[in-house]
């Protein structure tokens, strides 16, 4: 056990994967010599050399496309895209090829690669550096999309993603990279993909979120307990596939649901969760499912970003609303 923050936990997972499986290779911009813009790959180039930890030209489509080819031929590539806002040039490779090769070759070929992408706002970053467009990946057939919110989950889910025989988009909440430390086992362990987890028990309302919004949801839950509201917080962890059973069970239990994401609202994950809840738990609902989301706007720059990324105030307001309904 070592106390690690989320970035260090990911580094530890990558280190183990590189050490234990010769097929594992890292590929990305500035991940080698400098250890990545967030230092998540720190020290790995020095430890495993430039053939295992590969600094790539500035070309996201090329990086994902090359990794895709590598994966088909037996390598286990782990790609880093510098920020989610720079993943769009690679979107065609992901939707048209990475997510399809198993289907289009009827299992003859597969592409077990992991695409790690820091995402999300809340730190007043420059344009394009605060994207939260995870829904477009969750909407993409043939891939899995997961988001850890704790160091423990980050390591175990990344190791599970690497072991997965199918492609996984692994989103890392920038805002949580160094936010908290947690005891994390030194050895390999797997946190299964596709499974949500309850991070706080509660009986009045179910709060669904993932990534950095889990922390905001917990903050709100704590605050609301002072008002006598018992809020359950569920970390979805996996966006594709979504753990519908966990969602539906919680909604049926409490009868009140709020979903929190920092992404654009229209056709985002909050809408998906709301659709599922009403579909399978309608008759238990005591109030409409509230969506607390980023707006359908570009993430505003530092000066107004707090009007966009949900936090204590907006989450609490939504919870109070479902309580009063």
């Amino acid at each position, binding site marked *: 056990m070592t106390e690690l923050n989320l970035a260090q936990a990911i580094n530890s997972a990558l280190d183990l994967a590189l050490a234990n499986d010769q097929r594992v290779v890292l590929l990305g911009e500035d991940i080698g010599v400098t250890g990545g813009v967030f230092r998540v790959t720190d020290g790995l180039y020095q430890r495993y050399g430039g053939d295992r930890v590969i600094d790539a030209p500035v070309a996201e*489509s090329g990086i994902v496309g090359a990794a*895709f080819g*590598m994966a088909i031929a037996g*390598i286990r590539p782990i790609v880093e895209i510098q920020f989610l806002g720079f993943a769009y040039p690679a979107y065609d490779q992901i939707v048209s090829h990475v997510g399809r090769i198993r289907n289009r*070759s009827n299992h003859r070929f597969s592409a077990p690669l992991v695409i790690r992408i820091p995402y999300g706002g809340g730190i007043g970053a420059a344009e394009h550096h605060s994207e939260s467009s995870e829904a477009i990946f969750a909407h993409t057939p043939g891939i899995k999309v997961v988001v850890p919110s704790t160091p423990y989950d980050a390591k175990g889910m990344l190791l599970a993603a690497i072991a997965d025989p199918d492609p996984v988009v692994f989103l890392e909440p920038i805002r949580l990279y160094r936010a908290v430390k947690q005891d994390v086992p030194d050895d390999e362990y797997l946190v299964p993909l596709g499974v949500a987890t309850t991070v706080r028990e509660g009986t009045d309302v179910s709060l669904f979120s993932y990534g950095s919004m889990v922390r905001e949801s917990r903050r709100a839950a704590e605050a609301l307990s002072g008002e006598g509201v018992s809020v359950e917080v569920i970390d979805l962890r996996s966006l594709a*596939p979504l753990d519908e059973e966990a969602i539906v069970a919680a909604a049926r239990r409490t009868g009140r649901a709020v979903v929190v994401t920092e992404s654009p609202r229209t056709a985002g994950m909050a809408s998906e969760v709301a659709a599922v809840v009403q579909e399978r738990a309608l008759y238990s609902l005591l109030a409409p499912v509230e969506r607390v989301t980023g707006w359908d706007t570009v993430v505003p720059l530092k000066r107004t970003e707090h009007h966009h990324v949900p936090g204590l105030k907006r989450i609490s307001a939504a919870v109070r609303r479902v309580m009063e309904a």
Partner: protein
Amino acid sequence: MEPIRLLEVDGTLRGDPPVDLDETRRLFTAMVTARAYDSKCNAMQVQGRLATYASFEGQEAAQIGSIAALRNDDWVVATYRDAAAMWFQGYLWANLLLGRMGDERGGAPPEDVNVLPPSITVGAHMIHAVGLGWAESLQGSDRIAMALFGDGATSEGDFHEAMNFAGVFSTPTVFLCQNNGFAISMPRQRQTAAEWLTNKAIGYGMPGVLVDGNDLFAMIGVTRDAVGRARAGDGPTFIEALTFRVGPHTTTDDAARYRSDDLVEEWRRRDPIDRVRLYLQRSGGWDEAWETELAESARGAIEEAVTAAESVDPFEPGAIFDRMYSTPTSAMDRQRAALRRDGGDD
């Protein structure tokens, strides 16, 4: 720049042939077989037995010649127009047909054949060849990867990234561009202002070769050199093979809208199969009975493949949920249940 040519249009040879007479006869047979496949597909499409079909007539030397320079276990990543190449590397005609009938099982070549299903997205697949070859090097194998693509594909950003990665990482990749003069309706001159596509190679620090793509021998020669370099660890090569598609872009295209019959006739006179026949005749490696017989057995092989493809049973409704992941996810299971409950439409 003059394209490399070994075999003149009249079948006379410049210098030494790259392969002996037996191998030439084998490759001639392959080209004739491929053309038989091509005309069968066109016919089947008209009969409604195949979906849209993209003919490769006129490009047989570029495809068979380049593949002839590969080893059996090398990787090939090609397009919707490269059935001849894919087949010659081991993909089954029956699978190619099955794909054109709208069946995903057509995308699966035999286990020991390293050919990806045909790429329909223009441009995206060249970088896959880069990754495939790279993976082989990383694993200590000397397998190489060849990407086949058209002149139009060189306009896509992914072409650039593929060429650039191959240069930077010195991957064992052969970029075989069949410049057949058109990308659907657009002539090559509208794809780029460069005089030759070959001019692009220097921008990636790799050798570029211009070759007569209707010359089987020249195709074998330049590809062999490129493959040799790649296998020796000396990096990628870009080949521009000048050729022509005699047919329309696909069966839904009306080529008369954008090119003249004269141009087509001009290229028919440079037919890649005729040229080898003339060479074989000059070299005493041909007689009519032999060609009649091989044409006959080519057609027979294609008919067999058609029968095989057409007798494949339809998928069961739930199959679509089994193909997406190694093990169906919870979403696949839920949706399979929904389809079972409501039934599919027609």
